[in-house]
């Protein structure tokens, strides 16, 4: 696989990530140093600083939060005196059993599949970058793009819960309360989004550069 052209780092340059001013780069091996853009004052970096470490930290945090998000009840429905607490999966199972396949699918994809996908993809990307893997660079980049794009949709579940809690307030007839899982789930979504943001996709390609040299 050939590189289409020289990279900024090869040229010893750094583009400001905010105002895109081209600045002199750091010499290789001095990645820890950080500079400021002379025009806008933003931090200058050739690669996102501590990208892998940060991403790992956030991914691990998200993984930890993912457990209570699925174990604890997401919603507590009080209907005519019956109190029922539902976790994410029990809600999905309920919809499947009641025949509402589309709703079950939406909830499953948004609340279970996507967060898990993100966690796995990010972990895979981080591991592959750390191992300087050179295989399927393009696919991995695509995976990253998908992960970043799809991440926000996980908040769907939180929105649904929020709307339900706000709408269904019929006193003794029916009341829905957000469970503790909602908070953890929101934390998972937000933290994975940050993790995706802190991951620098250029690192995927750096492995290629390194081996090319």
């Amino acid at each position, binding site marked *: 696989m050939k590189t289409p052209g020289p990279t900024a780092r090869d040229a010893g340059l750094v583009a400001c990530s905010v105002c895109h001013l081209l600045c002199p780069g750091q010499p290789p091996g001095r990645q820890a140093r950080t500079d400021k853009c*002379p025009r806008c004052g933003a*931090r200058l970096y050739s690669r996102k600083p501590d990208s892998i*470490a940060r991403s790992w930290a956030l991914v691990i945090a*998200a993984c930890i939060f993912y457990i209570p998000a699925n174990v604890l009840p997401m919603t507590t429905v009080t209907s005519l*005196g019956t109190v029922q607490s539902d976790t994410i999966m029990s809600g999905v199972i309920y919809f499947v059993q009641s025949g509402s396949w589309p709703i079950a699918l939406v909830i499953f994809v948004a609340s279970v599949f996507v967060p898990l996908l993100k966690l796995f993809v990010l972990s895979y990307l981080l591991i592959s970058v750390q191992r300087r893997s050179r295989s399927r660079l393009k696919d991995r980049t695509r995976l990253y793009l998908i992960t970043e794009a799809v991440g926000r949709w996980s908040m769907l579940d939180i929105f649904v819960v929020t709307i339900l809690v706000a709408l269904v307030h019929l006193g003794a007839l029916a009341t829905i309360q957000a469970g503790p899982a909602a908070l953890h789930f929101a934390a998972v979504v937000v933290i994975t989004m940050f993790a995706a943001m802190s991951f620098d996709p250029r690192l995927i390609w750096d492995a290629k550069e390194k081996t090319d040299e």
Partner: protein
Amino acid sequence: MSEQHSSNSDVAETPVAAVKSLKRRFSLVWLVPVVAALIGGWLVVKALTEKGPEITITFKTAEGLEVGKTKVRFKDVEIGQVTGIIFSDDLSHVVVKAQLAKEAERFLSENTRFWVVRARVSASAIYGLGTVFSGAYIDIDPGKPGKPTHNFVGLEEPPVVTTGLPGRHFRLESERKASIEVGAPIYYRQLRVGEVVAYSLSEDGKKIVAKVFINAPFHGFVRQNSRFWSASGVDLKMDASGLQVYTESLVSIVVGGIAFDSIPSSHAPETQALEDAIFKLYSNRQAAQEQEYSIKNYFVLLFEESVRGLSPGAPVEFRGIPIGQVVDIKSEFDFKMNKVKIPVIVAAEPERISIAGKLPQGVTRENLIDHFVEKGMRAQLRTGNLLTGQNYVALDFFPNAKPAKLVRAGRYGHTEFPTTPTQLEEIGTRVSQLVAKLDKIPIDEIGQDLSATIKGARRVVTSPELMETVKSLNAAVQELQLLTAELRTRTAPELTATVEQARKSLAAAESTLGADAPLQNRLTTALEELAGAARALRVLADYLERHPESALFGKGKPE
């Protein structure tokens, strides 16, 4: 900074901006997973420490119970949830697994009772209506402390009384089940104060023993002399004062109930009954209110006449006061004397007769009855009700009765009490006495006296004095007639003239005193003038009061 410049020189061909270096800070991002781990760890620790005991409860059916939904509640506070329902090994029961909160651990002992609260409708009340919507739940009564256990057998029916409910338990004994029903109300002065908790047959199978619970503060009204009676249905009583209907409440008509009250008595102290005190349950209010006497003496009465109309339960009365009742009637034929004897066994309550004054010499409470018999006390059959022919046994003193004595330990092991023949025979003797008295009346003499009286009367009527009197009466009447005529012809016209004169005088007086009469007019004027004079005098008096000097110096000039 120096490195910065050197790198600048390295890339000379590309125009670049000068950059300032920034001090690198420690990456705080690792705090995020640490916080997450702390939160997660805290959740785990919390879940582990708050995890209470898991218990199993055996029920006959799992009606209304749902895994993950049915709650376990204590005093309506949720303390657990059903986590599983499985069958017992022999498939005869269901075993409900429930996860309880940690604080429930201290409730659990071998005395803890569990039952399912469902909507129940009974004749007296509707329970658990809330569960119609919310679904059944499992209720718990901690009970007294005991050996801790996690396996329980659930009650099929909710217990009537749970631990911690203030009040007191009592036991009622009765011969029939009557109105004893679990949950049947107990009334005190028509106020519902308790419930029947349970009932069972006594060990010898002769009595029904009901366990009742009286709620606080009413348990204080159960005294040692309290009487309980079955208050089921309506108690109708017809007597001289009319029809009387007793009922405790509508509920008791339907489901039955028990009422109690304290009967004032000198025998039992008025102290509160203790927990689990035993009381007799009377069949009705009247039976309960009758004095209960602990001492019962049995006697055998030997009658020779027919005892038709006498039945067990018939009263034994002493001059109309019931003092006992007939217990049994037997019959025996005495071949020796060729006589039928009918032994009637009666139970007498000697306490009903109290003694005034001192007992005679040599007489004690125990041999008092011998003394009475000596004085002529006998038993006698009497007709209590002419319509139905119901008989009763009467005790009375018959001074003329043949002397008799009590036979201790006679027939059937009881004391034999002497009897006297029924009144029918006595009526015969009375009638003969009456005839004898009638014989003594001197009818001949009475007749002679009567004829002499009639003769005398005739003599008076035909006497000349009477004739004379009648004549002079006639003359008096004639004179009276004359007087009346004179009154009519002479006195009446004069009276008319007098009346005419009086009317004229009245007219004159009216013209003088009438509203338009001159006298009246003048009088009004005179009165007005007098009023004016009085006013002037008041003005003068006022002036004088204010200016006393004017009496000497005259009225001053107006200023």
